[in-house]
């Protein structure tokens, strides 16, 4: 159990936002591991489940703002998948909605940090 948070970051939005957060020296928990993806819609259910198999404490899927996806609906699909994953995890006794989806734009570093903090809080509450 490594207790990391895995964040799948869309290269159009969340990834540059994370970079900007670094440039602004906005600090967030060190156990965040970012995987860069071309679109939040590219993140498959199995990627998320595998992160948990590997001991992740929580998974973040970060995509473009609703209505601003470069691929029209990749972010809304991701949101559905995140919901589905939480259901799948609940079925096997992993409670507390450890997968979360957030929407942000590339120039919203604060929102990125807020997302990371929020999932950290969720994780703490469920005691994982």
């Amino acid at each position, binding site marked *: 159990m490594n207790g990391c948070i895995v964040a799948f970051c869309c290269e159009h939005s969340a990834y540059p936002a994370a970079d900007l957060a670094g440039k602004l020296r906005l600090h967030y928990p060190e156990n965040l591991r970012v995987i860069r993806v071309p679109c939040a819609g590219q993140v498959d259910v*199995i990627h998320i489940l595998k992160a948990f198999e590997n001991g992740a404490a929580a998974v973040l899927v970060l995509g473009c703002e609703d209505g601003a996806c470069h691929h029209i609906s990749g972010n809304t699909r991701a949101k559905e998948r995140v919901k589905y994953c939480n259901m799948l995890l609940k079925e096997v006794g992993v409670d507390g909605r450890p997968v979360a989806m957030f929407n942000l734009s590339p120039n919203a570093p604060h929102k990125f940090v807020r997302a990371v903090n929020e999932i950290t809080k969720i994780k703490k509450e469920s005691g994982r």
Partner: protein
Amino acid sequence: MIIAERKPMEEIRQMIAPYKKLLLAGCATCVAVCWAGGEKEVGILASQLRLDQSKGRKKISVLEATVERQCEKEMVEELRDKVQEVDAVLSLACGSGVQTMAEMFEDKPVFPAVNTTFIGMPEREGLWVEMCGACGDCFLDRTGGICPVVRCAKGLLNGPCGGTRKGGKCEIDPEKDCAWVLIYRRLEKQDRLDLMRQYYTPRNFRAVKRPGRIQAVKA
């Protein structure tokens, strides 16, 4: 195409409770197309089982494999080595596939992970609707190509029942269309409404004696 959906986790859990090592066998034909038992779904279920943290759950190891058609003995044969390695098989194929598997590997318990539900078609991405009940006595010539046996909630051959809701919806489930309204409209288009006036005697839905067996004429 055969449509199936995954069984509730609790049911699967009970079936496999005694076993430590499992093979998850998918089928890349019908159940793959309906997102129930293809390679992707095998991966998801396997991952779920490995993650299972429910009470009293012991760690199990899970192998994954998917064959082209699980209802073909020759294709299932490919799995022999893998089956030897495990205590039990969890099949994500339709009932026919599960039975093929069970027959091929008689010494291993084979369990179904999906419920085979109906023969249907995709209405849109991710939604399937029932079209055929495999009754063995096709009636579609008289109903404009719409099957009242499965698409009418009451299975009426002489509909509609009189309870049709506004907008042509079924009285039992307002989400669904009344099959007989659909039939009327279709026949109207084809100018064959006279068929609506005919009376059909109740039918024996077991036209094919169970278990069904069909021999194609040998060429």
